[in-house]
Structures are given as structure tokens and as C-alpha cells.
């Protein structure tokens, strides 16, 4: 999740931020906001909504900074959890208000098999991930895109490590079933 070369820890940057240090604000933004946005985008499947949620999550971080207790929790873990909850709320609200807004699962076979380049493979992968259930998608994003441990993911998703392992196992099995029967056309062999 680190995008800058600042050697300071997130805790240190939070303290600096609370003291009014603008450089700390910039470091925290460049370090944390991209990952928050990626998670929100993966969970919501919509860029504009993901940016709204990511901005809201970061705003909550700024507000909690003066009361932040170093060492009590990891800043990134806390932030991912806030983002996850905000996304879950949005998804629940959307499903309650209008079931017709839910996109149909993508038909993986024809469009995916037609592409051979790396960018197309990435799109095929993203499309396949989009068809996964919410919790599997979230766990997969945190594990394979944000590079978090299963323990951290369990904290963020408020469940056990075993449950995370199960979610990841199901998710990868599902992706393999969707994608790997077209190894040749995807250029994986």
C-alpha cells in the first residue's frame, strides 16, 4: 500500500497530521488513498461511487487523527475496515431500494476467450472477479491486490482467519473454473 518513500510510520504521520503538518497530510493521502479507492472500486464496481466512498473514508481518518492512539491499531487496517463498512452499507441500500440496478453477472466465455493480450487478460480477470459474491470479492481484493495477511483481513472483515481462508479458497476455485478452461486463448500456456 506504500506509494511514497517516506520512512515514517503511519502512526507518526497521524501524529504529525494532528499537529497541522501539511506534508504529513500529503504523505498519508498518497500512501493510503489509492488502496482505499481500489477496495471501494472492487466492492462497488463503479468508479464514481468508489471515489465518494474513498473520500468519505479518508475524511473519517482526518477527523480521528487528533484522538489516534499509536500502536492500538494499524492505520491501514482501520481505514480498510471503514471503507469495507461504507461499501457494505451502500451495497445493502442499493439492493434494498432497487433490485433492477444490480448488474447481471458477466458472460465470461465469449469475450474473455477472444482476448490474448495482457491488458485483455487483466480485463478478463476483473470481469470474473466482479461476478463473485461480495465477501469473496472483498477478501480477494485485500489478499491479492492490497497484499494483506489473512489475519489482517479477518480483522477488517470482522471474522475468523478460517472464514477468510474459506472465502479465498472458494473465490479462487470459482475464478479458476471461469478462466482456466480457456488457457490457450488467454495465452496462459
Amino acid at each position, binding site marked *: 500500500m506504500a506509494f511514497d518513500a517516506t520512512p515514517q510510520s503511519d502512526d507518526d504521520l497521524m501524529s504529525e*497530521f494532528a499537529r*497541522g503538518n*501539511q506534508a504529513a*497530510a*500529503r504523505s*498519508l*493521502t*498518497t500512501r493510503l*488513498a*489509492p488502496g482505499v*479507492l*481500489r477496495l471501494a*472500486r472492487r466492492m462497488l464496481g463503479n*468508479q464514481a461511487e468508489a*471515489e465518494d466512498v*474513498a*473520500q468519505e473514508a*479518508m*475524511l473519517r481518518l*482526518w*477527523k480521528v*487523527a487528533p484522538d489516534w492512539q499509536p500502536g492500538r491499531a494499524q492505520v491501514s487496517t482501520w481505514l480498510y475496515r471503514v471503507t469495507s463498512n461504507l461499501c457494505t452499507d451502500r451495497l445493502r441500500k442499493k439492493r434494498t431500494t432497487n433490485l433492477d440496478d444490480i448488474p447481471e453477472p458477466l458472460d465470461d466465455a465469449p469475450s474473455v476467450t477472444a482476448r490474448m493480450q*495482457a*491488458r485483455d*487478460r*487483466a*480485463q*478478463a*480477470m*476483473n470481469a470474473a*472477479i466482479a461476478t463473485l459474491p461480495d465477501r469473496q470479492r472483498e477478501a480477494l481484493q485485500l489478499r*491479492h*491486490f492490497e497484499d494483506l495477511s489473512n489475519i489482517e483481513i479477518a480483522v477488517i472483515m470482522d471474522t475468523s482467519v478460517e472464514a477468510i481462508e*474459506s472465502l479465498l*479458497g*472458494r473465490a*479462487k*476455485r470459482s*475464478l*479458476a473454473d471461469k*478462466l*482456466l478452461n480457456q*488457457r490457450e486463448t*488467454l495465452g*496462459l500456456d
Partner: protein
Amino acid sequence: MPDFDKLTPQETQALDALFDDARAHDQPPSRQFLDRVMDDALAAQTPPAQPDATRRLRDRIFDLFAQLGGLPGASLIAACALFGLTMGYAGPDQILGLSSLSDLSAAAQTDLDAELDMFQTSDLSFDESELLQ
């Protein structure tokens, strides 16, 4: 016992390659988005406006006034202060109509004697020798 089939090493390798592709082509956050986040950060850092010295003094005076009991309390204190000042400046004889503090003491003693003379005998002329006859 998990109810899904575990991936083979070949499947894992193939999926890992697809994850790599997906990560490599992840869309970075836009400049506008990062600017909005930074704007929020800087707004959150702005300290609330500090009241100027005059306003702080006025607030303290109002607080003190309230602690003294408002207008009635402050009036009583002001009256007592004025009386004390006048007494100190002019002297008690001018204020109470006495020539000196000894007069004040004598007057007080006379009043006290009169109060203690319950049978009003102070004006009777009495010769103790008459009792012996």
C-alpha cells in the same frame, strides 16, 4: 473439511499470472480525486478561529459577573464598596454624627446600661444608710 476443490499447482500458477496482469493494469487514482482528499485533509487541519484579546477579556468579565450573582449581587458589592470608601475618606464621625470613636463607645455603653436596668431604678435616689436605721 472445505467444500471446494483446492487448486492444483498449475491452476495456482495460472491464476497468479492473471492476478499479476490485473494488478499491473489497475487504474491509478485521478489527480482530481487526490486533490479532493487533500482539500478535506487541509480543511480538517485548520484550527478553529481564536477569539481576540478584547473578546476574551469581555467573556471573563461576563463570567465573573455571573458568578457574583448577576445584577443584585454586583449591586450589593458595589454599595458595600462605596460605603467602605466613604467611611475611610470622611471618617465614622461624619458618617454617624459622632465626634470621635470614644463617643461612639460611650454611647454604646449608655445604651447597654439602660437595656440592662430592667426595673428602671437608675433615676431613684437611694441612700443605703437609711436601711440601717
